[in-house]
């Protein structure tokens, strides 16, 4: 805090000093992040070019217009003895300053049109990924590979509430990043499950709204392996600021390896469904699952947000028949923010979280659910 204040002070006094060396100016621009990222794709660089192009045109026009203004403000002031002239019309001038901006606009529009058309060309992709926005996480679905997983914020609450120092990727880190191969045209099919979100990675210049019930298309082609970060860019409720996006671009070989590992994981997870767990195992696991998936709405203390998200502490469902409770979690409550978690969580996780909710915060029901029961519920549907 103090350090930042010092930097701030330096910044306020510093411009003069900075101007002295071009190099340090560029460094400083970099450090302060004052401009649009150039990004790592051809599209993002074209957009950066457009941005700079319009920017300089505006600066130019500004210099001329404001220049004349300041000139007249200095020279034609009454205090300097200026006498007012009386002209108030000139068709010639009016025509000039209608036509000139118009021409400038055409000059701007041409490259913009070209870039836009390219961006809209989502054909001939090598790989399709279905991206679904949820309150407040992303689901990535590799349609052809039968791999799907959720990706949510991994910054601990302690950092957010200033109880622990913040890392460099504060709020821009997730538990499982999206992995894509480099040098491939990847098409994103973007949709949402509840409200509108927007999937945005500045380095790719991809920003597309995720509209529930509709699918939007976008694409990227990344040359360089690397980790690229972005955020949800449409207000989507309470934790809109806490649903980052992390994309890991890796060479194709690595990508293929990763995919098969993912597929193997899924099989292993399936197997666990048959297993019988003890109460304590379920409870402990449930606490984790709860913190990750449910606490955003029902809050860590189970008290919810009055009027918006019901508390589970002492709730009729958590203290009622276990099947109803299971059903709410698996199928959600249609038409509300309560999603159907059956498709998001494994049977084990559902069993664990239900067990946890029925026994945490003084909800001492003493009962528990086994994954196999959850599976039966799902299949019975």
């Amino acid at each position, binding site marked *: 805090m103090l350090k930042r204040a010092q930097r701030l002070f330096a910044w306020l006094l510093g411009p003069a000093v900075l101007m002295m060396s071009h190099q340090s100016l560029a460094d400083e621009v970099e450090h302060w992040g004052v401009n649009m990222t150039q990004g790592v794709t051809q599209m993002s660089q074209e957009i950066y070019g457009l941005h700079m192009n319009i920017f300089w045109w505006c600066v130019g026009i500004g210099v001329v217009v404001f220049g004349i203004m300041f000139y007249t403000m200095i020279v034609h002031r009454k205090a300097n003895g200026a006498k007012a002239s009386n002209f108030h019309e000139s068709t010639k001038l009016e025509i000039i300053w209608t036509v000139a901006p118009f021409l400038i606009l055409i000059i701007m529009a041409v490259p913009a049109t070209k870039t836009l058309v390219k961006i809209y060309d989502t054909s001939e992709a090598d790989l399709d990924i279905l991206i679904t926005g949820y309150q407040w996480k992303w689901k990535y679905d590799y349609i052809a590979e039968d791999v799907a997983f959720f990706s949510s914020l991994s910054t601990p609450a302690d950092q957010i509430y200033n109880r622990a120092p913040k890392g460099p990727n504060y709020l821009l880190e997730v538990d499982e990043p999206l992995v894509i191969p480099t040098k491939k045209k990847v098409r994103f099919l973007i*949709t949402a499950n509840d409200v509108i979100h927007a999937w945005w990675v500045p380095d790719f210049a991809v920003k597309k709204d995720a509209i529930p*019930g*509709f*699918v*939007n298309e976008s694409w990227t082609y990344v040359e360089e392996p690397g980790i690229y970060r972005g955020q949800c860019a449409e207000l989507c409720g309470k934790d809109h600021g806490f649903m980052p996006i992390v994309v890991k671009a890796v060479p194709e070989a690595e990508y293929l390896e990763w995919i098969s590992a993912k597929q193997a994981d899924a099989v292993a997870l399936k197997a666990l469904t048959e297993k019988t767990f003890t109460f304590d195992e379920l409870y402990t696991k449930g606490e984790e699952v709860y913190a990750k998936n449910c606490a955003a709405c029902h809050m860590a203390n189970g008290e919810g947000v009055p009027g918006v998200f019901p508390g589970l502490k002492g709730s009729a469902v958590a203290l009622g028949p276990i099947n109803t409770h299971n059903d709410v979690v698996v199928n959600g409550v*249609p*038409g509300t923010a309560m999603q159907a978690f059956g498709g998001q969580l494994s049977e084990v996780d559902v069993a664990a979280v239900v067990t946890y909710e029925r026994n945490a915060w003084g909800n001492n029901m003493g009962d528990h659910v086994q994954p196999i029961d959850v599976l039966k519920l799902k299949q019975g549907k």
Partner: protein
Amino acid sequence: MASEQGTYYVPEQSKLPIFASLGLFLTVFGAANWMNGNETGPSIFFCGSLLFAFVLWTWFSTVISENMAGLNDAQVKRSYVWGMGWFIFSEVMFFAAFFGALYYIRAFSVPWLGGEGDRGSSNMLWGNFEAAWPLLTTPDMALNGEAALVKGAGQPMGWQGLPLYNTIILLTSSVTVHFAHDALKADKRKAFNYWLGASVLMGIVFLILQVEEYIHAYQELGLTLETGVYGTTFFMLTGFHGAHVTLGTFMLLVMWLRSVFKGHFKSDDHFGFEAASWYWHFVDVVWVGLFIFVYVLGS
């Protein structure tokens, strides 16, 4: 134009506006409470509406008696004319929003959901939903079958029968209102009363038939407000129109009562009636739009 200006009538202080605001506020405040399931809602709503209606009643009476007292010169009258004209324009824009929505739904959202056009990939979310209008099978039904929450209508509403009769009735009533106007200008009081009375009756018949049509829709066609966008647009457009017909009929009825029982209106001074008749023509034009876009092209 403004030569008569010196006599422009600026009313004295008036209690009307503040009480009108209060009435309006209580009405909507009550309505909101009601919709949110608050028990006090209905009573606040009804008190507010009563107050509001009473204030409006007084307000119009005041304006009428001012006019009869000769306080309104030609310029003041022109202000009222402008006022009514632009009020009707604002109503047109209100309907435009709903017609626009209907257009968007038919031209874009339903086809997209059915897999056509630029956002056709949306279809992957909706099983084998196929775009059709009237939309009887909703995307929800295509995906979830019986478990769907948003079910479509059983059958669409045709344009023959009741809607066609209603079109004829409303168009005719517009003509009779016009005849009434001509009669008034020619100072034929009796003819005026007959034509106007006939228009009011036709307004009422229209409304009765529309209720009939709604009952038919709900009970026989399975077409309700909740049956997907077809039901939504059908009932919202015809419903708001019906509300306007109700208001228009009421306005004409009041004019009729004023003429028959109070002998109001002169052949050269009858803006109250004229305003109501404009409103009526406006309602009529909207209906023609509805008939074409909702009924004929919609079924």
